[in-house]
């Protein structure tokens, strides 16, 4: 697979995972998966529970190490050993409830662990506030104050804050793990707007979900996993919600 850098595809590849294998004890969680995301592309990663979606993403975000396989980021082979390393490359993962501290303000959350400081480690609150509002506005989220606590925001707004954080820190690839789960219809639509905005900013997105009705309008391409295997990798124009649904529920065929 070293021919990657010279294959000369029309669209630039951002991340490419080749023959990824992962075992948990005797469970073969990922059975040689090839997965690619191109620049400014929104990929819907779909599949039933236990299909291996989360495991694949955790390998990409540095949470798990793959037992076999290679990962290329912007054409270079990388060995993503920690979430910090993934973030340095520009891969940001937005998990459902794990992303934010509910009793801290918006700006303190956006800069959590990466606070801008003036001297002796004292926070530059003014720049934190200003940059927070800027980052929120860039995804089309207009909140009253950077001092508002996360617990006072709606579920959709919380996702927005986490996405704005990824954007501010110059993510090239944002991984959204079930971003619309437990959200109202209106809030889910808001999150889908954020995703469109990310694409417009030139950022690639991996959208993991069960909900085909949410992912279908936003994604350019779909990757379907079943029991640790990739069973489909298909452009939106070549498929439909019903086709995808059939793929997800169909048992994997060994031919």
């Amino acid at each position, binding site marked *: 697979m070293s021919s990657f850098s010279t294959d000369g595809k029309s669209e630039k590849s951002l991340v490419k995972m080749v023959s990824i294998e992962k075992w948990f004890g005797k469970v073969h969680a990922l059975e040689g998966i090839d997965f690619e995301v191109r620049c400014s592309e929104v990929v819907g990663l779909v599949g039933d529970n236990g299909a291996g979606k989360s495991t694949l993403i955790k390998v990409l975000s540095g949470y798990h190490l793959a037992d076999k396989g290679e990962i290329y980021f912007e054409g270079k082979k990388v060995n993503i050993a920690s*979430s910090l390393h993934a973030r340095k490359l520009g891969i940001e993962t937005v998990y459902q409830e794990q*992303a934010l*501290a*509910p*009793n801290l303000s918006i700006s303190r959350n956006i800069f959590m662990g*990466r606070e801008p400081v003036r001297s002796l480690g004292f926070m530059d609150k003014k720049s934190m506030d200003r940059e927070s509002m800027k980052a929120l*506005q860039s995804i089309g989220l*207009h909140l*009253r104050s950077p001092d508002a606590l996360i617990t006072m925001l709606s579920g959709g707004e919380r996702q927005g804050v986490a996405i704005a954080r990824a954007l501010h820190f110059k993510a090239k690839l944002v991984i959204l793990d079930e971003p619309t789960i437990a959200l109202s219809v209106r809030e889910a639509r808001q999150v889908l707007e954020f995703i469109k905005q990310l694409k417009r900013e030139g950022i690639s997105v991996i959208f993991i979900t069960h909900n085909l009705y949410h992912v279908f309008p936003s994604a350019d391409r779909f990757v379907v996993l079943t029991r640790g295997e990739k069973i489909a990798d298909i452009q939106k124009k070549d498929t439909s919600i019903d086709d995808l649904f059939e793929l997800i529920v169909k048992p994997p065929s060994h031919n």
Partner: protein
Amino acid sequence: MVTNKKDKEKMPSGVAVAGRAKKLLNLFSYQAVGTLLVFLALILVFIFFTPHHLFVDPRNIKALAKLTPDLGIVALGVGMLMISGEFDLSVSTVLPFSSYIFVLLLRAGINPVFSLFMAMGVGALLGLLNGLITVKGHIPSFIATLGTMMFWRGVLYVHSRMWPIGIRAYFPAGSSFEHVLIGEIGGVVPAQVIWFVVFALILGVVLHFHKFGNWVYATGDNKEAARAMGINTDRVKTICFMIVGTLSGFVGVMQLLRLGSFAATQGLGFELKAIAASVVGGTSLMGGIGSIAGIFWGALTIQILENGLILMRVPVFGISAFIGLAVILFVVLNTYMRRRMMMMR
């Protein structure tokens, strides 16, 4: 929820000033509005209802001012640790342990300033141990520090044989060291008060304005999120444990100088009183919520409540009942106010 962009850009200076004043107010009242109000109400009640208005007698006020910082300074550390999501029950042992170390060094002819730093260093070490047991052993700090509290207390009792050790034989009265720690500024304000305020200001600035403070809140509020954002939550907690130990060591020596004699029972009961002070000051038992100002008022409130009840001749054993009742009422009040504030926004 929608803000007009143009309004934001041309914010008139008057609004900015009002905003700054509001921020200052927030700093002092954050999560502690209820505490401050009840604190003031308590003072009024005690002024009117203690016999001969003894509560506001200068002698009583001076006694209170010398006494309160002992618990107060320990509570500042304990409260900050609680914001990071952990407890320290061992303060009531670290305190006399450091005091004992100080006396031993003094007896060995070592300079008191150096001895003080050694006592604080021992406190920090015991705090480090608490922290390591908690984060490396993955056990609740409530249990870890319950264990170290009992262990070190046993060691202290056996080694010191619980004999009091007077310090006058090794330490001349009226030395400048003593003045700095427990003297009186202008013959009126006890130095202990100054130390309480100084420690509160230092910790307040660190907790509310330094990035480390943000890590403390984040660690206590959502450890997983903090860790995912690259914060070393284990280190944050361990540092908080060390701050508690250092402050307990300082108070051990400060109290020793006031009492004039080492007692193995110094600081007995501080572990729960410090938690009570923090909780009364609006600190959450779950971590992530609280403020130094709140803990400061909380410690004052606990001490004033105790003092006022003594002056009102409530039987000593009855005082405990009142304090217990007060803690519960405060938490209910704080929780209610917090919920009201949420709904208002």
